[in-house]
């Protein structure tokens, strides 16, 4: 008989397969798990009767939840089960290399750019040959695929100098590639891009090719050179082409990933004790450190370590922060008392040739010091990250003091800080398998929760599901409502998908704290990188309102004296965080409070509901659709040369290769006009598609007629869902009206509406409200399954879309709206990456300057003198000039052609401070007030 926790333990420690259950949890759960064996539990699902909490909720689940044995002694729980590898592989389509289409696109661009030059004829000839090759490939494939071992002249030259491995692949070998991907065909490899978006990494081997590579080359190695030429994701297509026509056997050079400490975030999250010495060494080497000092005399003298209550990583004498703490403590006292300045915020120090940022946080007489290496976390990021760390500590422990004085808390703090440090350093380390921009030190990740603009229908669906959970209407579950006292009241919840906040019903401060917790501990990252089968987290927290409330305040609106718990449930890429209150009208929570399976199931069923309406599929395609608002991810098309290239390539490649980088196939034919959009919202297809099919934005009207069949299908769908209601029929006819008459009709309609003084949003809502008698889920499905009918929106003025990126930040709410995080990966474009990098660095500058204005207006710091000139600035713009080297990589070699783009930030102080940062091409001047206005329509 196996004791459960032992089995699971060994699974997660030894097996590298995520296909198995990875589970460590908080091992206190062994007190329960000792009672069962695995098999026995499966056989007797009803054996849950002797669980106290089960009895308390009569209608609770009928089986023991699988996370049950992981509940810690203190009632806390962290349970993760990841989807198995095979299953996940399907969803984990890396947007770059596995999706060969994007490769062809880049390829196409390059090729056509050279086609214009004198080499044109050669390339034409090449193309013909290549198609022949393809045919040959196909025939030969059949022969060779049967027995891969009969390929005789394969060479394996392993240069065992510990860094590089060279493999020569026979030219005669042709591999089968289901995806028709050039790389797979030539080398039998599938590649993915590394986190940096440039380096190529081995993702997998085809079955036939395994024999060639496997002893020497492993998954995760970097493909560095082909035939001695350095390759990266930008130039691989060119090189592949050369290889394809070359007669010599290609030689591949792989780089073994150097001693990069590869940390599995899920292991880190679930392990209770940080006994891993290599992790501690890693943190020591990277100069991350935290120290809490109690500076009053009593503690100073009584404590063995001269007032140091906590220090990590240990041992003390190897921690540079511990060794030099005197300097920081002195400065912290001296600055406000003798120099008349505020307390220090950060210090930059040079230690062992490394620049380190040390942040100060005072708590009465105590001082919390946190240090980060400047390379990974710069000064701007340090202050923000440390502010968030303090938020997390206050959320989890109530105050800094109680956090570091709570008995037997060191292990938990160790694991918390190691999680935070590892996550913060991850920005430039290679621990991620997916190449989403997961750094927590990017400008947009530091300041607030990253939200995205969703269409109204989707927002309604999401909020509907969450509200249902929050309403806690349990009449259906139990008959004797009188005797049933609930355990918790849900006081708010928020939903994340793949690291993006979809909706929040939390108070602003709670959201900020929970967001900081999820982000810095890496849970959010886990939900992006991995496909979660199940994630359950249960933790007692101290909500902000409770902490700030004066105990003796007799206010009748004060919140009850109770306890609060954070319940986090995850599935797929969704994370649902729910804040529970025990107190007031609920049963009192006393002593150790483990999670209630009933509430966990409630949250899970809320996520199920979202799956039911197909939100997971909708969001997956929405996230790659780049529509709300649309960004220009091929910036080179805005130059003269680029435009020519686009036009010629568009003409020549029509019918064979689509120029669009969008994945919405039927998208161009389905244009749904928003009623309430003003004339200025430019609705159009993506610029590239536009060009291919119609030439310019002006021919928009054509599209209303271009796809009659699909329109018909679409409208008939709508008819079905609304058919019982005359009101909605009317609105439906309005829509089709629009479609036929295009803009003119819309304008007329708006005029009509304007005169009646009603807002169009209301019209629509009236319609849907009236139709409430229909089965709601039907409508849900019909709405969300129509993925292809996504409307694109533009928020910049001008004929062409000149918007590259934007960030709208509401600091008070703790929310910012920006394009999806992996937009850069989606674009897969050197120039675009350069633009984003410059934009981020500009945002930091602009943000810091605009803070003076905000601080002055909100009057938070009147005590400290402000520069009177800086406080008046409300808009700050920077025009960047792209270096020719980067333009050259995009095929624009003309000297006269320059590429300039603006990064502009503006603060809107009414009604509450809001900052908008926009990055756009210089060709069309933009008014930021207008952009903000148009953006607000999308919300």
């Amino acid at each position: 008989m196996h004791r459960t926790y032992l089995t699971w333990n060994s699974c997660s420690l030894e097996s590298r397969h995520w296909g198995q259950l990875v589970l460590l949890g908080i091992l206190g759960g062994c007190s329960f798990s000792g009672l069962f064996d695995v098999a026995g539990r499966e056989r007797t699902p009803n054996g849950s009767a002797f669980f106290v909490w089960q009895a308390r909720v009569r209608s609770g689940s009928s089986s023991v939840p699988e996370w049950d044995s992981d509940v810690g002694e203190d009632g806390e729980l962290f349970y993760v089960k990841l989807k198995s590898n095979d299953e996940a592989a399907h969803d984990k389509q890396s947007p770059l290399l596995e999706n060969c289409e994007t490769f062809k696109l880049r390829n196409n661009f390059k090729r056509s750019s050279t086609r214009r030059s004198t080499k044109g004829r050669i390339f034409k000839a090449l193309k013909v040959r290549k198609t022949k090759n393809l045919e040959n490939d196909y025939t030969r494939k059949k022969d060779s695929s049967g027995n891969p071992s009969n390929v005789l002249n394969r060479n394996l030259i392993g240069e065992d100098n510990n860094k590089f491995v060279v493999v020569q692949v026979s030219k005669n070998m042709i591999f089968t590639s289901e995806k028709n991907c050039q790389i797979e065909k030539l080398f039998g490899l599938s590649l993915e891009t590394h986190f940096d978006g440039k380096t190529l990494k081995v993702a997998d081997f085809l079955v036939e090719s395994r024999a060639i590579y496997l002893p020497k080359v492993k998954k995760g190695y970097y493909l560095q050179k082909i035939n001695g030429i350095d390759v990266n994701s930008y130039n691989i297509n060119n090189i592949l082409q050369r290889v394809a026509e070359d007669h010599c056997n290609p030689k591949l050079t792989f780089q073994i990933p150097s001693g990069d400490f590869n940390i599995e975030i899920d292991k880190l999250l679930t392990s209770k004790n940080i006994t891993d010495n290599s992790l501690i060494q890693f943190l020591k080497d990277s100069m991350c450190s935290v120290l809490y000092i109690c500076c009053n005399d009593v503690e100073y003298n009584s404590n063995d370590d001269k007032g140091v209550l906590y220090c990590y990583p240990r041992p003390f004498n190897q921690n540079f922060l511990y060794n030099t703490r005197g300097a920081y403590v002195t400065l912290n006292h001296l600055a406000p008392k003798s120099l008349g300045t505020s307390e220090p915020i950060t210090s930059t120090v040079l230690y062992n040739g490394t620049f380190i940022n040390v942040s100060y946080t005072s708590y009465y007489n105590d001082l919390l010091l946190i240090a980060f290496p400047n390379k990974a976390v710069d000064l701007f990021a340090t202050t923000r990250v440390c502010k968030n760390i303090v938020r997390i500590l206050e959320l989890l422990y109530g105050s800094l003091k109680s956090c570091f004085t709570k008995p037997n808390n060191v292990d938990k703090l160790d694991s918390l800080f190691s999680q935070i440090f590892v996550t913060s350093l991850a920005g430039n380390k290679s621990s991620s398998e997916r190449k989403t921009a997961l750094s927590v030190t990017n400008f947009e990740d530091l300041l607030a929760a990253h939200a995205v603009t969703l269409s109204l229908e989707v927002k309604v669906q999401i909020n509907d599901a969450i509200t249902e959970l929050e309403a806690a209407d349990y009449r259906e579950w139990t008959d004797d409502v009188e005797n049933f006292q609930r355990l918790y009241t849900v006081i708010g919840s928020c939903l994340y998908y793949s690291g993006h906040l979809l909706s929040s019903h939390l108070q602003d401060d709670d959201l900020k704290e929970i967001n900081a917790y999820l982000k810095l501990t890496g849970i959010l990252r886990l939900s992006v990188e991995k496909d979660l089968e199940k994630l359950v987290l249960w933790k007692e927290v101290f909500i902000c309102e409770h902490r700030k409330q004066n105990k003796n305040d007799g206010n009748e609106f004060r919140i009850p004296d109770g306890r609060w718990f954070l319940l986090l449930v995850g599935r797929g890429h969704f994370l649902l965080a729910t804040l529970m209150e025990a107190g007031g009208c609920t049963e009192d929570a006393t002593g150790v409070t483990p999670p209630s399976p009933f509430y966990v199931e409630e949250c899970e069923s809320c996520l199920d509901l979202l799956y039911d309406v197909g939100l997971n599929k909708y969001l997956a395609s929405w996230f790659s659709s780049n529509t709300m608002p649309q960004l220009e991810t091929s910036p080179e098309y805005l130059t003269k040369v680029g435009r020519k290239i686009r036009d010629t390539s568009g003409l020549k490649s029509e019918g064979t290769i689509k120029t669009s980088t969008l994945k919405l196939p039927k998208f161009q034919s389905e244009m749904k006009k928003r009623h309430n959009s003003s004339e200025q919202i430019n609705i159009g297809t993506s610029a590239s598609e536009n060009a291919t099919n119609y030439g310019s934005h002006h021919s928009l009207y054509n599209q209303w007629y271009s796809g009659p069949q699909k329109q018909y299908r679409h409208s008939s769908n709508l008819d079905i869902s609304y058919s019982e209601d005359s009101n909605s029929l009317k609105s439906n006819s309005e829509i089709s009206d629009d479609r036929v008459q295009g803009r003119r009709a819309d304008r007329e309609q708006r005029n009509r509406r304007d005169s009646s003084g009603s807002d169009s949003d209301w019209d629509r809502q009236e319609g849907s409200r009236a139709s409430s008698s229909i089965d709601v889920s039907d409508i849900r499905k019909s709405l969300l399954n129509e993925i292809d009918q996504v409307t694109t929106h533009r928020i910049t003025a001008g004929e062409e879309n000149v918007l590259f990126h934007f960030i709208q930040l509401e600091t008070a709410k703790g929310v910012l709206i920006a394009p999806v995080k992996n937009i850069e990966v989606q674009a897969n474009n050197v120039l675009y990456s350069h633009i984003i990098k410059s934009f981020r660095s500009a945002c930091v500058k602009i943000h810091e300057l605009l803070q003076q204005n905000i601080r002055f207006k909100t009057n938070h710091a009147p005590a400290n003198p402000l520069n009177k000139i800086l406080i008046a600035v409300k808009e700050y713009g920077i025009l960047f000039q792209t270096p020719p080297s980067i333009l050259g990589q995009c095929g624009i070699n003309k000297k006269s052609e320059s590429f300039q783009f603006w990064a502009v930030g503006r603060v809107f102080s009414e009604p509450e401070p809001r900052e908008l940062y926009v990055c756009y091409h210089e060709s069309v001047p933009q008014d930021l007030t207008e952009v903000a206005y148009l953006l607000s329509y999308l919300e």
Partner: protein
Amino acid sequence: MSVIVIAVASESGVPIFSRKRGNNENVQFSTIASLHGINMFSKCHNLSMIKTQVENGDILWKEYCKSVTLIGIATGGLECDLELLLSCVHDTMIFCIGKKELENLKNIDQIKRDLRQCYPILDYLLESLDPNAVSSTQPTLTLDLIQSMLCPQAQQLQQALDQYAESVTGRWACLSIHGQLVATSSDFHELDAREARLMLLLAAAQDGAPLRDTPVYLPHMSPNVAFRAVTCKLLADVYILVVCGATPPLSQIDEIVLQCWEGYAQMIKEAKLIHPRNFPTSITFEPSILGILAINVPRRKCVFSRHLNVSNQKSRGMSGAHRTDILRTFYVTTARHLAPELKFKENENKEECSDCISETYWSSEYHKCHAQRSGNLLCCVLYSSTVPTHTMRLITTQILQDLNTNKDVYW
């Protein structure tokens, strides 16, 4: 706003001087000791404190020549220039007593006394961090640029200066009006911009003396051998500076000055008329422009003007001094990014400054600032708030073109 600069002998911890500007109290001796102690302590642990941020301010330690530690504390001003200020203060100390003395620090009391003569210059330098300081007539606008005037007579004056420098066996000579550089001898640009600035400040500090010579050590050119700087007042607010050797004696120089400059009196008077506008009359400006700061980047020279259009001078709400302040703050905090070669970074880890910024602007409720670079010229222009952004760009481009092509412009 407050700026404090403290100099301490690194090894002994003896305070050498402390200068301050703004509404702060004097720093006590014990505080200086503690501040120095922090630096010493961290040095023992192989750790150096580079910079500490406080709210709206910075605290900085900097050790020079392994003998002197400068501590700077600045709040509520242009604290981003604090590191540059400390470096300039150090330059000034060398300027006064030479590098050798400063390295040895043998007789601290003597050095303290010697350094007292450069206090006026130090105070001018401190002014540069005060965002609301331009009430003073001294050229303290920025720390890294030489304030100058663009006048059409510069070429002829250069000939006169060459002649003058030759006759006093000197090499570098210049003419300043209202503390601003008007004309230089032909090899004056051999001097580092900061040395030239120190010369101008020296002339300003010797208020009113008709003819004076001072031994100076040029911090970059000759930190160990002293030169003789001779300042001579020609007219009110007009000075001639020359750096020369020990001969000829002052009395002889007096005669040479008369010989050389007698014929140029009229020309200098004409040049003086340029003063508040600082640009040749052949360059005209749009009425929406409230002020301008034009910078020649390789020469480290800047021309500032807020009296561009005489007619509507009074009608604008903003006071002239305030305009100067705005443009200066705009340059220091923002527009300097357009000229990466002007960035002062000694110790900071060199981040790759690959981002090439070609334009930048601010807009506030009351005014707008726009900066654009074209070749060697960088132009910061202050506009009234009614001018749209794209119009600003057009006008600034026009000005830059004017400055590049106008024949009356001699940098």
